[in-house]
Every structure is written in structure tokens, then in C-alpha cells.
């Protein structure tokens, strides 16, 4: 589905990404984790074709990403960037309808199909009752929900999310991730998300890509990636790793004092 091969990127002689290779299969959810400055955001910018890699290539459905037109790419891949949606006075419904833009010819207005998809998504995301409210009246968390609904309206095969849970309280974080997972399962879609919260990443993602200084440090399941020694090296903290009592996946507990060894 999504193949990344040997991607390198430098800014002013500084290697930000170094030989990044991985793939994401259809229906899989990949979580990208790593400390600040490890190249996660640059990787997302390159995956979403905002920037070109210096070397290497990215293929979607075996087709090199640069072969896609802007609209083709938007039909194949939706991206939720960190910026989110600005509080501009358009209604929630209009904002979600913008997700149908890649399906519209420049001289055509929205079709019946566009209307149907938007109504369905408003319902599924629980936004129906606030469809007529204006974006500038909403809270940050609500705008984030609209942004996700708009991304869903693109009916993409792949969804890229750059720290979708930042600035949200835990209630919003969980409900947002649950909603995304449900959408993913229903549509057999592929998801790639950058997450700061390692525990959420382990719980929600099938596979984890751990980045360190622009390189892939580890790539695999939560069990394979989460390792106290590695995390200590990368993040500079000594975490306690326990097993989640229900999900049976590793979870990390931070501690304020270093463990006496």
C-alpha cells in the first residue's frame, strides 16, 4: 500500500532523514514515535508530498507519489497536519464538504454523491447536530473533530495524522482515536500517525516505527520496539515497563527519580 524506500532529506547540510525504509500494508495502522527533532514531522511532510526527498522514493499502490496530481493524491490520501483548521466562519457542514473538493471538477458544484457522503460522515462522527455551527465558535477539540470528518470525506485509502491528539484532554484523545480506529476497520483503510504518547501508540497501532536522529531505530510490534534500554538511550529517561492488564501490551510508566540500580 505505502512503500517508503531509502528516503533521505537534508536541510543546509544537516541530515534530517537518513535512509528511511518501511512499508505499511493495507488495513494496517502504523505509529511513528520518537523524541523531538528525530525527523517525524519531516517524514510526514515528505509522505504527504509537501516536500520532495533528496533521495529514495515513496510509492502508493506501487505508483511513485510524484506521479499523482494534487487532486488524485487527495482522493488517495488524507492528511491531518498539526496546524488543523483555522477558526474561519464557515459552517461545520461546509468545512466537511471541502473534503469532497478533489472529487469536483472546477466548473461543477457539489454532486448528490458529495451530499450523501457528507451527511453520512456527519452522522458517523456525531457532528450532525452541530452541522450549522460556525468553525470560529467551536473549541479546539471540536475543530479537530471537524478536521477529521473532512479528512474522512475525502474517502482516502490512507490517512496520515501528525500528532492528532496534541492539546486534547484524555477524554477527547481516546474518543478521537476510537473513532479513527472504527473508521479504519469499517473501510479497511490504512493509517499512519505520529504520536507523542507512547502508551497510546502501543495500544492503537499494529506496528510502531521508532525514530532516532533521522534514522529508523526500531520497526515492529509494541513488544518488539519497546525496550527500556533503548528508550533510555533515545529519550534520556529510565521508564518502568509493565504489561497492560487487559490489552496485554507493554506500557510505560515514567518516574521522577532515577531507579537505583
Amino acid at each position, binding site marked *: 500500500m505505502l512503500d517508503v524506500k531509502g528516503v533521505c532529506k537534508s536541510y543546509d547540510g544537516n541530515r534530517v532523514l537518513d535512509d528511511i525504509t518501511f512499508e505499511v500494508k493495507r488495513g494496517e495502522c502504523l505509529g511513528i514515535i520518537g523524541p523531538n527533532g528525530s525527523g517525524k514531522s519531516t517524514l510526514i511532510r515528505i509522505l504527504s508530498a509537501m516536500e520532495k526527498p533528496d533521495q529514495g522514493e515513496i510509492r502508493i499502490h506501487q505508483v511513485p507519489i510524484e506521479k499523482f496530481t*494534487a487532486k488524485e493524491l487527495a482522493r488517495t490520501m488524507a492528511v491531518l497536519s498539526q496546524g488543523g483548521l483555522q477558526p474561519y*466562519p464557515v459552517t461545520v457542514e461546509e468545512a466537511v464538504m471541502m473534503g469532497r473538493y*478533489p472529487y469536483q471538477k472546477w466548473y461543477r458544484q457539489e454532486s448528490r454523491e458529495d451530499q450523501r457522503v457528507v451527511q453520512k460522515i456527519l452522522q458517523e462522527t456525531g457532528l450532525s447536530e452541530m452541522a450549522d455551527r460556525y468553525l470560529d465558535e467551536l473549541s479546539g477539540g471540536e475543530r479537530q473533530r471537524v478536521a477529521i470528518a473532512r479528512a474522512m470525506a475525502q474517502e482516502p485509502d490512507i490517512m496520515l495524522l501528525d500528532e492528532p491528539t496534541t492539546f486534547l484532554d484524555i477524554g477527547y484523545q481516546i474518543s478521537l482515536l476510537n473513532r479513527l480506529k472504527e473508521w479504519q476497520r469499517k473501510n479497511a483503510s490504512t493509517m499512519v500517525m505520529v504520536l507523542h504518547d507512547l502508551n497510546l501508540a502501543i495500544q492503537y497501532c499494529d506496528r510502531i516505527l521508532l525514530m532516532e536522529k533521522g534514522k529508523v531505530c526500531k520497526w515492529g510490534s509494541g513488544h518488539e520496539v519497546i525496550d527500556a534500554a533503548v528508550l533510555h538511550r533515545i529519550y534520556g529517561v529510565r521508564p518502568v515497563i509493565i504489561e497492560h492488564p487487559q490489552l496485554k501490551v507493554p506500557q510505560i510508566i515514567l518516574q521522577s527519580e532515577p531507579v537505583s540500580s
Partner: protein
Amino acid sequence: MDNLRKRPWIIKTMGWSAVLLSLLVVMAVWSVSTGSADISFLTVWKIIAGGIPLFTSWMDPSSWTDAEEVIVWQIRLPRIFLAAIVGMGLAVAGVAFQGVLRNPLADPYILGVSSGAAFGAALVILLGWQQGWFGAWTLPITAFASAMLTLLIVYRLALIRHRIEMDTILLAGVVVQSFVGAALSFILAISNEHMQQIVFWLMGSLALSKWEFGWVVAPLVVAGSLIIWFFTRELNIIALGEESAYHVGVEVDRIRIVLLVMASLITGAAVSVSGTIGFVGMIVPHIARFLVGSDHRILLPVSAFLGASLLIAADTLARSVMDPRELPIGVITAFLGAPFFAFLLRRRKNKYF
């Protein structure tokens, strides 16, 4: 009908356009009946009807003088026509600049684009090139080119690390505008032009209107406005953020260039016949937003009609308040616009529009 109900913006656009078109007609009627030459309201309309082929035979040409006919047909009407076109153009350019730059205070005047256009136009006139390479189009085309060049300089000045900050571009506009304005005054001064000419270019005036001006400028303004109107859906998407617009398939860079070029073209055309009339491009979109909301699909046509009405009104005031002396029209628009600008500056806390 079912389709229309699902697209309320079309109905809203048509409704408001009808209302504002009526306002435009009212303004034009008021304007054509107002002036230093004392011609009665009825006579004015008899003269106008007398000039329209269908009604000519019913009118009695002996009920008015030739001088009165010339005043109405060759002085007042072309002036109203030009005011409408210039007002429409500046308002549309304002909507485009505010939308593309995502800056509620942008307009051709504040960005220095108007001054740039005026500089080019004045240069053509001083050098006597009015009938140059492009015939009657030489003037607006040169004004467009210098408007575009000015915008490029402002844009480059404001572009810091691939980002344009809201306030930086306004400052860059102010800097460039004062420089270009000084250059304009300088060349007019050394060429022994009358003070009146300098005032014309710096404060704007429609006193020199002729039908021919209108026929050259109108196609440019209308075509530019239509092209901008085609991109209003994209402008709505860009309003929610450029990066997120890119991700739904909007070719932000290309559209930005098209819209900036079109807005400069319209500005150049308008300025080449009227000088730099300030603030119209900034106030009108805000009044329109207050009336119809922020959807660019509605905002653009509504601003066009509103701009035309506003400039006709401003021009009528300019030539009647100090009668028989005439004020530069830019004085009227600045009296309205500057306090408005101050108001927006204060109100702009967290809101973009």
C-alpha cells in the same frame, strides 16, 4: 429546485445581487442628477431618454440646451460609469488580496500596489507614450506591470523564512508605498506638472472621465473579476489554512499566483484612469462580510456591486460638498476608510475575519 435548496449560497447570491443592483441604480440616479450645473431632475432624465434609441422619438430635444446634453452625456454619465467600474475593481481586488494573503487589512492601496500602478501610469503619460505599443491599452497594461512589480517587491520583503506574517506584509506595503509615492511626486515635480496632476495621482479623481476610458478599463476589470470568481471555492478552503488546503487537493501556490496577478491587473486598470483611491478595497469586503458572511462565493459578487455603489456615492460627494470646487475622491474614501482601518485594528484580537 431540489438542487437549489441544497445550495443556499446561490439563492443568497442572487437575492443580495438584486438588492445591491437596485442600490447601484439609485446611486447612479442620484449622482447623474447632482452637479454644479443646475439642471433639473426631470431635464436630466429627458436628456438620457433622448439618447436612447427606443425613446428618442418621444422626447422633444428643444426642451433642453445642447450644453445640458453635453454635460449629462459627456461629463456625468461616463464619470458614473467609470466610478462604478473602478469601485467594483478595487473591491474585487480587495476580496482577492484579503483572501489569498489571509489578511483582513490587505487591500491594493495598503499593499502599495495602487501606488505602483499610479507610478507606471504617470510615467507613460509624462513620456507621452499613451498610444505606445498597445494603443489605448498601453496605459492600463503599464499600470498593471508596475503594480505587479510592486506587489512582487512587497511580497519578497515580507517573505521571511518561507512564511508571510500578517503584520510584516502590511509594513512592507507601507514602506514600498511611501517610497513609490515619493518617486511619483518627484517625477511629477521635475516635469513641471501642475500640482493638480500630482494630487490626481496621489489622491485619486474621476474628474477626467471619458467614455473611452471606461471602454478600455471595463473589459479588464470584468474579465479579472470573473476569473477570481471561479476560484472562490478554493479561497474558502484556503481560508481554513494553506497547508490543510493543500491536503484536500487545492494547488495553493498556483492559485495564489493566478489570484494575485488578476488582482494586480484589476488594480492597474482601475488606477490608470482614476489615480490611487484608497481604502475602497479594504472597507467594501468588510461591509459585505457583515451583510452576507464570509463565504467568498457570495462575498465576491456582493462586494463588486457594493464597491460600485460606494464609489459612485463618494464621487458624487467629492464633486458636490464643496461645490463649485471639487475634492479629490481619495479624500472622501480616506475619511471613511482610515477610521474604519483603526477600528478593525483594535477589534482584531483573535479573529481573522
